[in-house]
């Protein structure tokens, strides 16, 4: 999204004769900033509260009235929290699931999107409508047969139930990729075909490199959805060595009766990776939300 914004007002309209309305405009802008900053503070307070509790001694964490600025700052809480939740192993597990999820989505959604965008075959329209409608279908509806299927396959308590379904194109990403591929001029394909490229080579050499922005969006959103997933691991994963971070954090809740400082330290640790990725790839996130919103 372009950052240059039209000068607009409450209704979004442009301010035309701005010298006359200067005072009104300034009051208005003061109001805008006040509300935005206040709102921002309200949004950030829970995060500050988490972080500050995470570095408090237990006495201060359980103090009334609450202590806003921890003293002393106990970084050892993080060490204890890491130890209690078997962090490295859970990070590895979450990483594996996420990695294959991203890889699978990138490949499958771009392939299928190319199919829908460029080929004419019977039933294409109907199939695409079906794909779109599955976006509205929560996976909870099919959760029981899936569970039974994975049980019969002997996949329970492995990562397979979490990885294999995400190797197949998700409707949302399929849609996003297709819309993007449609903006690539067909002449590019045709030129490649005349040069002797097969369909797949055309896809690989022309479409894929040109779809990078859309692939970026798919990657970050898959990362997020895989990393955040809770119900999936909750149902399919049972032994502790296979826990993901989300499961580990949830289990920790029962390990401490009163040590909310340690719980908040663990919470902070689990929140950190997505926040880092978010800051690194902010553009993709924001663009992804806007694009899916505008096209949906």
């Amino acid at each position, binding site marked *: 999204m372009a950052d240059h914004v039209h000068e607009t007002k409450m209704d979004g309209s442009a301010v035309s004769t701005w010298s006359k309305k200067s005072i009104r405009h300034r009051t208005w802008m003061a109001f805008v900033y006040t509300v935005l900053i206040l709102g921002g503070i309200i949004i950030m307070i829970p995060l500050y509260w988490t972080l500050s509790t995470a570095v408090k001694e237990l006495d201060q964490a359980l103090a009334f009235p609450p202590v806003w600025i921890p003293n002393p700052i106990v970084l050892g809480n993080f060490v204890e929290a890491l130890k209690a939740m078997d962090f490295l*192993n859970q990070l*590895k597990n979450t990483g*594996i699931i996420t990695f294959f999820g991203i890889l699978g989505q990138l490949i499958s959604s771009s392939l299928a999107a190319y199919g829908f965008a460029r080929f004419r075959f019977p039933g294409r329209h109907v199939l695409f409508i079906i794909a779109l409608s599955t976006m509205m279908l929560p996976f909870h509806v099919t959760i029981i047969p899936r569970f039974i299927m994975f049980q019969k396959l002997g996949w329970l*308590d492995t990562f397979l139930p979490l990885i294999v379904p995400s190797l197949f194109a998700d409707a949302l990403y399929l849609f996003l990729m297709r819309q993007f591929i449609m903006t690539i001029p067909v002449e590019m394909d045709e030129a490649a075909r005349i040069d002797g490229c097969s369909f797949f080579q055309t896809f690989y050499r022309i479409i894929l490199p040109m779809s990078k922005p859309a*692939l*970026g969006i798919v990657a970050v959103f898959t990362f997020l959805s895989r990393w955040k997933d809770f119900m999936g691991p909750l149902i399919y994963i*049972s032994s502790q060595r296979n826990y993901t971070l989300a499961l580990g954090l949830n*289990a920790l809740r*029962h390990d401490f009766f009163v040590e909310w400082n340690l719980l908040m330290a663990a919470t902070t640790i689990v929140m950190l990776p997505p926040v880092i990725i978010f800051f690194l790839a902010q553009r*993709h996130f924001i663009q992804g939300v806007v694009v899916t919103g505008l096209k949906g």
Partner: protein
Amino acid sequence: MKKWLVLLVVVCLLVTGMALSLSGSAAPKKVQLRWYLRWDNARLNNVAQPIKEEYEKLNPNVEIIIENISNSNEYHMKLQTMLVANAAPDVIYPATHQAYVLAANKQIIDLMPFVKKDKIDLNVYIPEVLELYKYNKTMLYGLPIDTAAFVIFYNKDMFDAAGVPYPTDDMNWEDFIELGKKLVKDTDGDGKIDQWAFHFDTNTVWQVILYQMTGELLFDDLYNPKKFLLTNKNQIEALQFCADLIHKHKLTISPAQRGNIGDMFMSGQAAMNIIGHWRVPTYNASVKFNWDVAALPQAGKVRANRGDGSCFSITKSSKNPQAAWEFVKFLAGPNAPGVRKLLALGQMVPSQEALTKDELYLKTPGQRLINKPAFLVGRENMMTVYQPFTTWYSEAETAMRAAFVPLWEGQATAEQVVKALAPQMEALIAGK
């Protein structure tokens, strides 16, 4: 491209993880036994870990893999999933009623053949306790490890500060209330009460009080329930008495007001806690004040306490039942090293009669000397808080807990909540 940066980060995470996992899994030629526990961190570190080390030292060809879920509900749910997936750990630690359901579903194995082969003398176990781990009177599906008797843990420093005498082993509930009232205080004078008499786990304690007061369990028969007895007038009164501890006598705050502080005694907000031996290692490890225990108060002259507890069982999916049995025997057999180790670490009230008189239990060396006989008070009248022993127990429990919420919050009387609950229980009995 930032996208590549993102991928790079993910790949880095992955590679580090894999490297770590590889370095951790060298030479797996030993017999691996998965040991599935539901303990908190203090017990995991101070009890489970030393036992694992000791057993591995004695049996160099065996590797014990500890798996732990500290919440009893989730423990059982995960276990179910693993059993369905045929990927359950070898040795598990179910509570009495859970073990029964597992045995009824044939998900844990009969230990009788092993017992006979190794000529284990089952008479060392308290007979009433051993009975709780038998299916159809013949199948023994677990070796009992403990009884989960309730006692009063009390904060000596708080009692001293308030100038109140310590609780004694011969108190009844009226004494408890009188004592408790003197401990409810606003210590810093800001107008808010910040010290309460006791931490009240409303999930389990009431069943024991009920049994003390009425001599009846919740259902007419432990194994084959046909009638829900909580609708009886005397049971309703007893239940109301429990709620009155919170809302009439104001000895403590309700579960809702407590929020997610799981132990007010530990956080220094309550002078007492009614709970069992499983808190001993926890308090030993992480409580700074002086504390001791006293027997659970009695109702009038009637004493009673829990006979249920936990056992070690072997799952059907175990690939090494023989090796698993050896470990179970080490953990819970007659005067077994594991039992002694558990005792030496301050864990548990033994299910073996002889051990309750052992110095190791009564005066555990190197541990805070506490009033251990308090845990044995009420043994003449054993009961189980898990009612009934059927496959629909977990549904009954869920319904019961949900129905009692307004009671514990002071929004309804015992009579009202029981009335609302009764049809659900009858439907469960009828098997709808």
